[in-house]
């Protein structure tokens, strides 16, 4: 049985997740990583050798070019990525500068958080379904769960307070009506899975916050 996060002696917080739940959370984390990288056009590999050499060049123009090559500040295109990397100002110039100097670092932090979560969830053959978070893992999980929820909420088109509750209620009413033909549309069926995963992540984040309060 899955159980929520609980404080343990020694200061760790543990939760129990079914193998399937671990797999789906790791999968969503990986998909969010890929979405961020793809949308911001970030490279998986470190800067190529030529760029590294240019970064140490005596020519200031070459150094500048290397800096720009290594720190793209592409505006997010996907609506979920826009939510993760919002404009920092109504003033386009202020927002642009902010992106230019901070977006790359912010993206790397988010990718790293998600990767750490995946590594903790992805331990094949360990036979243990418990996830134990040490002090330094807690902020990583809080941020990572939150970023995943933001992306799923975008896919569910949750843009106003209370909208998820409404969506869920409509789905439950739909499930109760017997004469409704089975859903054939892939998008709608996919939406139900996304909603279920969103609920799972929300439950986990809530339980982690609650366990922190009671530690």
């Amino acid at each position, binding site marked *: 049985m899955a159980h929520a996060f609980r404080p343990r002696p020694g200061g760790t917080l543990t939760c129990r997740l079914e193998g399937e739940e671990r797999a789906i959370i790791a999968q969503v984390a990986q998909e969010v990583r890929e979405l961020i990288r793809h949308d911001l056009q970030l490279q998986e590999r470190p800067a190529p050798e030529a760029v590294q050499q240019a970064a140490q060049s005596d020519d200031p123009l070459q150094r500048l070019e290397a800096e720009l090559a290594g720190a793209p500040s592409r505006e997010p295109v996907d609506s979920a990525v826009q939510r993760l990397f*919002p404009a*920092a100002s109504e003033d386009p110039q202020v927002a642009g500068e902010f992106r230019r100097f*901070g977006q790359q670092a*912010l993206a790397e*932090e988010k990718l790293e958080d998600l990767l750490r979560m995946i590594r903790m969830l992805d331990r094949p053959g360990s036979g243990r379904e418990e996830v134990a978070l040490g002090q330094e893992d807690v902020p990583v999980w809080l*941020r990572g769960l*939150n970023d995943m929820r933001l992306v799923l909420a975008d896919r569910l088109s949750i843009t106003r307070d209370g909208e998820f509750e409404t969506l869920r209620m409509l789905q439950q009413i739909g499930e109760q009506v017997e004469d409704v033909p089975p859903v054939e549309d892939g998008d709608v069926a996919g939406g139900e899975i996304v909603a279920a995963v969103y609920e799972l992540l929300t439950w986990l984040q809530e339980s982690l916050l*609650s366990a*922190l309060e009671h530690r």
Partner: protein
Amino acid sequence: MDGTDPRAPRRGSAGTGVLEQERSSVFGSLGDGPWQAVVHNDPVNLMSYVVHVFRTYFGFSRARAGALMQQVHEQGRAIVSRGSREQIETDVQAMHSFGLQATLEPSGQD
């Protein structure tokens, strides 16, 4: 970027100095300066999460963090800090790292 972790607790939030005493009252100063950081409402972030972020990053008391969270929720936005442009950029970057909607703007707007 100066190489320090932008998500680490903000200046003056970890010690027991004057700044923290100010920050722990419900109506204490948010700092002073020509720029301010504003957090905006969104329907996804849990209220308990927003309070947690305000407490751990800014070092606000539970009551203060709760009041600011309520203000965000009810009025759509709340000013969470004021300072130099550089300080406020750091705060906004930190808020984005936690997934909160935040902007910087010249001080003086509500």
